[in-house]
């Protein structure tokens, strides 16, 4: 007994304790049907532990009427809750019933749509259905560090499965080692020549690489420009193609060799120009 009394069991730290509550009236219209999503509050760790309902029966005294208050079972067929009130002959019209029906605590996810169905010649009015519940804030352990099962958030890590690379096992290792040994014994002049040659080779490789990059960029730019042009231009005919037929084309004008006389008109014109020039020059001394 002492051990049981002191057994800690499923306990919460300070401030994280389950709390209880009840919903408002789930029946909002005369259809006597309701969706639990519209009735229950938000928390996911909500267990319904009771149904409280009331209504007024409308029937003839001699009639027998069954009234079913139920909720569908989301996880299967049938009902998760169903309470039947059998109004036998002798029960009076206008009698009200008020009931509290405890249920095994079941999480909200099992509770489907609710309804009140009447079987027989009668009806119900002034119906009210509400649900009592218990909320476990630690339903999700990550809700608080004080919850049982809480795990601190960890950064995602990846384990690398690889074997260390041993360069001495490479196929070219022996050749490289021999070369290194040769270099150790070379003279200062040979070493300088070798380094100059290697430096020259490096520059050439770099130039080739840059040239390849430039070519690639030029090609890419040209291709982009071409695609841009073809996307905006329907069909541009830049040149007109003409066909030139083959054959021999001969000269049509032929100048024959002969004596060409001096032009008298030209001579007179030249002399007249000369006279005018002399007059103009002499005029400045007059």
């Amino acid at each position: 007994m002492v051990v049981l009394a002191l057994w800690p069991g499923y306990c919460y730290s300070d401030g994280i304790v389950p709390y209880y509550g009840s919903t408002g009236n789930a029946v909002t219209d005369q259809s006597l049907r309701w969706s639990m999503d519209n009735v229950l509050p938000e928390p996911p760790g909500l267990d319904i532990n009771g149904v409280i309902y009331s209504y007024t029966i409308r029937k003839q005294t001699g009639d027998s009427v069954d009234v079913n208050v139920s909720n569908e079972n989301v996880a299967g067929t049938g009902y998760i809750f169903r309470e039947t009130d059998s109004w036998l002959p002798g029960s009076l019209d206008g009698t009200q019933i008020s009931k509290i029906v405890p249920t095994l605590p079941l999480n909200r996810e099992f509770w489907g749509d609710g309804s009140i169905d009447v079987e027989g010649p009668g009806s119900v009015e002034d119906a009210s259905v509400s649900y009592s519940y218990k909320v476990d804030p630690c339903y999700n352990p990550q809700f608080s560090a004080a919850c049982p099962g809480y795990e601190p958030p960890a950064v995602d890590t990846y384990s690398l499965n690889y074997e260390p690379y041993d360069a001495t096992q490479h196929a070219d290792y022996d050749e490289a080692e021999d070369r290194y040994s040769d270099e150790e014994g070379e003279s200062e002049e040979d070493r300088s020549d070798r380094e100059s040659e290697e430096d020259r080779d490096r520059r050439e490789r770099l130039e080739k690489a840059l040239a390849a990059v430039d070519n690639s960029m030029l090609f890419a730019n040209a291709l982009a420009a071409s695609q841009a042009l073809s996307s905006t231009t329907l069909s541009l005919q830049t040149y007109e193609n003409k066909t030139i037929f083959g054959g021999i084309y001969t000269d049509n004008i032929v100048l024959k060799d002969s004596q060409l006389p001096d032009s008298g008109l030209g001579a007179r014109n030249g002399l007249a120009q000369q006279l005018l020039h002399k007059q103009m020059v002499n005029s400045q001394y007059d």
Partner: protein
Amino acid sequence: MFKHTILSLPILALTAIAAASENAPINGTVQSRCIIQTDQAGTFGNPNAYTLTTSPTDGGDPAVIRYDVTLADAYYAQISIPTSFSSSPTLPDQVTWTGDTTVKTISDATGMGSYETNKLELGDVDRYDLTATGSTWFETTSTAVMGGSKAFPGGNYTAMVTAECIAK
């Protein structure tokens, strides 16, 4: 009205034959399986000078009494309507009392649905056979009419409804 029964059964010492004797008490407590509580106190409306009534249409409210029974077919609910004021100003004439008790709400349609049909009316007293476990709410109305159509004097009036749980 609650009736809690407390059994106290002292063993009586018989005439001592020997020279010395001792009385040893045996005590026990029985919790009632029938609990009565006032769910709603009634109020009188005053529709005219010579009438006091609990009718809602006249501004009054009936009294509602709740019976909680945890042992089936063991009790009667016996409810008496008022026949006098327990407190009031001095009245100028005789008052005529009428009233009724009905089942308002039940918690078991099958077991309690016939309570009202099967009730026994004994003058101002209505007796119900509580054959099922659960809760039953009884509603009691009351109307007081002053004789000679005289007016009720101004003041506060109180009348009592007596509700009893009687073991079978």
